[in-house]
């Protein structure tokens, strides 16, 4: 890192040499379009990693922090993984966000444990602290047990399984085995049993079309306020690219303030939980102390009001930030009262 930090070409070449074998560790049948790691793919991934590293000054940060080789290596691995996943077929990106990420997100029900820092096992959170064994069945045996004992939904035409159904399936799979299951076997069998579209099959090329607010259809950034972005679907559909604002100005902020002024406390509370905390419609309404029907009406009304704004799609993060501050500041005195 010191050499990279000093802009030494040797340092950058050494870093490139470190990246290549780490990229090749990922199974090409999942992470590449044609099932094999080509030198060009690896070169492209290495270039994107080095670009991020230099643009964000991470080489300097890692060197100057004195964080030690182990931490730097672990952070580099994370950067490599992000780049590899970004370059993976959309079907694998979808699998990652719908299955792998989803499993991890529900720590109150599911758990993972490692053996020697390399082997990962998956289980139920309730097993933590109990003497559960590690499953010794092979992948095929596990497949047969799960195939026989669980009623599997099929992802026909790549249509995603609802998030709550997916969670129940995870739970059943582990509950039936009643032992820690190797993560690779778990994911492989889940993929096969629900007929998850194979990487490169083209099912997830189209943008997601789901309207269920507890679902994730296709790859997307899990950190984005999804509910807020979905509110603008109608807005951008009704404005074809050639008619979009060419020189958007900042007048959207005052327009947004005017819109919000006409919403009462309950409606603003609902919008806060729905758009900012990204809760689903039902929870947002309840947290705002209103009925689910009220939440539904408010969402529809807000979608229509948003049509008054003159914005470009690139401004959405700014609009979200402004709306967040607007709602937060307007609700704070009432929440504290």
């Amino acid at each position, binding site marked *: 890192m010191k050499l990279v930090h000093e802009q030494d070409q040797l340092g950058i070449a050494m870093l490139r040499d470190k990246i290549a074998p780490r990229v090749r560790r990922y199974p090409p049948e999942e992470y590449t379009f044609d099932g094999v790691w080509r030198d060009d793919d690896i070169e492209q991934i290495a270039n994107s990693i080095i670009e991020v590293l230099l643009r964000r000054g991470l080489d300097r940060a890692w060197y100057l922090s004195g964080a030690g080789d182990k931490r730097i290596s672990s952070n580099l691995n994370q950067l490599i993984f992000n780049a590899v996943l970004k370059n993976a077929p959309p079907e694998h990106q979808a699998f990652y966000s719908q299955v792998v990420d989803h499993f991890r997100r529900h720590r109150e029900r599911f758990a993972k444990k490692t053996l020697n820092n390399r082997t990962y096992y998956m289980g139920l959170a309730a097993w933590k602290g109990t003497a559960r064994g590690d499953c010794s069945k092979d992948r095929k045996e596990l497949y047969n047990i799960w195939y026989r004992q669980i009623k599997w939904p099929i992802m026909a035409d790549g249509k995603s399984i609802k998030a709550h159904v997916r969670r129940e399936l995870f739970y059943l799979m582990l509950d039936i085995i009643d032992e820690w299951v190797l993560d690779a076997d778990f994911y492989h069998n889940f993929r096969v049993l629900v007929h998850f579209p194979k990487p490169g099959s083209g099912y997830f090329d189209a943008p997601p079309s789901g309207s269920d607010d507890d679902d994730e259809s296709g790859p997307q950034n899990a950190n984005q306020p999804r509910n807020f972005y979905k509110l603008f679907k109608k807005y951008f559909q009704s404005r074809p690219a050639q008619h979009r604002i060419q020189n958007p100005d900042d007048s959207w902020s005052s327009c947004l303030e005017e819109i919000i002024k006409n919403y009462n406390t309950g409606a603003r509370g609902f919008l806060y939980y729905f758009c900012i905390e990204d809760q689903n419609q039902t929870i947002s309404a309840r947290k705002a102390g209103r009925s689910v029907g009220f939440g539904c009406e408010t969402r529809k009304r807000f979608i229509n009001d948003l049509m008054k704004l003159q914005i470009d799609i690139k401004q959405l993060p700014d609009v979200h930030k402004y709306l967040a*501050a607007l709602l937060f500041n307007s609700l704070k005195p009432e929440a504290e009262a």
Partner: protein
Amino acid sequence: MKLNPGSIVPINYNLWPKASDCVVMAMVTGSEGNWLSLCPVHFEPEAAGFMDYVVTPEMTPLKMLMVVMSEQIQPVPLTAIDANFIAGKDPARLAALALPDSVREGLLRDMYFVLSHTKPQDVFKVSRGAFLPPRSSAFKLSQKLANDWNRFVVSAWQKDLAARGLNDRAVSSLVAEIERNTNSRTALSLEMPGASDKVTPRRSKNLGGLGSSSAMCSPGRSSDELQSHQQPLETARQTLVDLLVVNGRPAEAARLADATFSEFLKLILQFFPLKSE
């Protein structure tokens, strides 16, 4: 060496949680002898919350994208900083981290601006993070960073106080008090009046420490809360005051007896030098 407010410094990784892979540095927000106040700086822009100040590479000669977690300012002993850096044994790093006065002052000013301005009209005046959805991985990462930082602060005090030869009772009471004053990272959440009981309530009315950089100086606690909070502090205070009196230092004992918590920590560092010093 003198650590000026606004400087970015390497932390002592021997005190950082072993299991954590996070890479952080710290921004000095105040210094007085062996006492410092620091806030964590990390390099994960996606985990930058609304109350975090984002420093882009072009804003400083450091040319790094940094996220300053301004709500997490905490007082620490000098030993929380990388010992080689403090001793001036790493001239390359020292030179790389040296910042002109105007840049340091600018960083500090903007960091406090982020902390004290939350109105919509102010959100674009200084670069800051976004509202992170509480269930997002970015929010969880920022929570993890804050928790690691808190453990680091507690560990720094624990080691430092023990190295000053204070007795176990005083150290454990003080550490308990410091631990109680660390800020856990919470979403900027609101609890609306009339919210349904079916919704699991979020942690009380914690507004993410808006307007107060540290719980150590946050006003408005109830008297019961204050009383229960003061117990470990008072135990430590009494133990150390007695020790100073026994050692024939009544003037110092009197100062310690009247000090506020933050002042109390500074005085301990002053009155009880490290055993190796």
